[in-house]
């Protein structure tokens, strides 16, 4: 295993390509928040307090629609529910850390930090069970998470300052989908993962107009469920 600092730097390096998709997304959020009438200070604070891109953009849409406060909070909760699945996925790797480290890494557990970190945990084997303190992979997580956090705050600020200089016709919001395409393709290694993705894609289309973004949750749960059925079938054969 490499040193703590080595792991930290490798985490930052792994996150760098992802930032190409994140930075325009953060800028778009900044622009959208201002045009929704959110004051610059609140728009910037939201990037630190909520720290979840798609939920933040949904929130700006709800502000424009004068949605009641309780519905706004409920919507953010539902849009971010997928993070519970990331939390469960990371939990076994983080259980021996001290509470402070757990709180810090939980705060940094975004789509983008999770995506590179879980790949790192899968690729780099755990050290001997006899000396678990040799496992320094949490520093990789910290590096990836902080790289994403800093660029999210900075790109929000740039978006707030630039305002509407970048025309909407550039469609920079599409970089979000492109980033996720680049992340999802390598995960489609076997039949069960392919089935999970295909099912989730179809359900997401069919359920897109459900309220409160419930279509996303439905797509994820059905995708995982059908994928598990396919996997069980392959295991029993």
């Amino acid at each position: 295993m490499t040193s703590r600092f080595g792991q930290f730097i490798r985490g930052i390096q792994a996150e760098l390509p992802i930032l190409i998709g994140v930075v325009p997304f953060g800028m778009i959020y900044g622009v959208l928040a201002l045009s929704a009438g959110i004051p610059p200070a609140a728009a910037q604070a939201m990037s630190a307090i909520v720290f979840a891109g798609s939920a933040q953009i949904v929130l700006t849409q709800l502000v424009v629609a004068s949605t009641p406060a309780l519905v706004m909070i409920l919507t953010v909760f539902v849009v971010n529910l997928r993070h519970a699945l990331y939390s469960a996925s990371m939990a076994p790797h983080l259980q021996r850390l001290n509470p402070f480290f757990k709180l810090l890494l939980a705060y940094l557990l975004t789509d983008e930090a999770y995506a590179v970190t879980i790949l790192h945990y899968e690729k780099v084997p755990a050290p001997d069970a006899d000396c678990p303190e040799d496992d320094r992979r949490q520093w990789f997580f910290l590096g990836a998470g902080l790289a994403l956090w800093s660029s999210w705050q900075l790109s929000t600020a740039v978006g707030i300052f630039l305002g509407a200089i970048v025309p909407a016709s550039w469609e920079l919001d599409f970089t979000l989908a492109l980033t996720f395409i680049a992340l999802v393709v390598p995960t489609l290694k076997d039949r069960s993962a392919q089935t999970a993705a295909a099912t989730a894609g179809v359900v997401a289309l069919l359920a897109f107009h459900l309220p409160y973004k419930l279509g996303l949750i439905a797509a994820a749960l059905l995708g995982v469920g059908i994928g598990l059925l396919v996997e069980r079938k392959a295991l029993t054969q």
Partner: protein
Amino acid sequence: MTTFWWVMIVSGLATFAIRLSFILLIGEREVAPWARRALRLVPPAVLTAIIVPEMLLPGGELDVSLSNGRLLAGALAALVAWRTRNVVLTIVVGMVALWLFKAVLP
């Protein structure tokens, strides 16, 4: 605007609680093998559920025609991602393709 600050703070705490949930709860206990298999399928399912509407439902309406630049650019980007496994190249090719398609398509 005071209300909005409270919306942000409560939303932020809720998001943090979701992210912390299992990390704090599981503690020393082991995760069951079936749960581990299920969790491995979460990223392909969630990411695809976000990608597909972005490509096929521009503006909220289903568009599977060849005039949908996002569909063509996304398909090309998926091909690049599959062949090269390169995140930066995937994004660059996808965006340039989207602009080209928009310039060429009706």
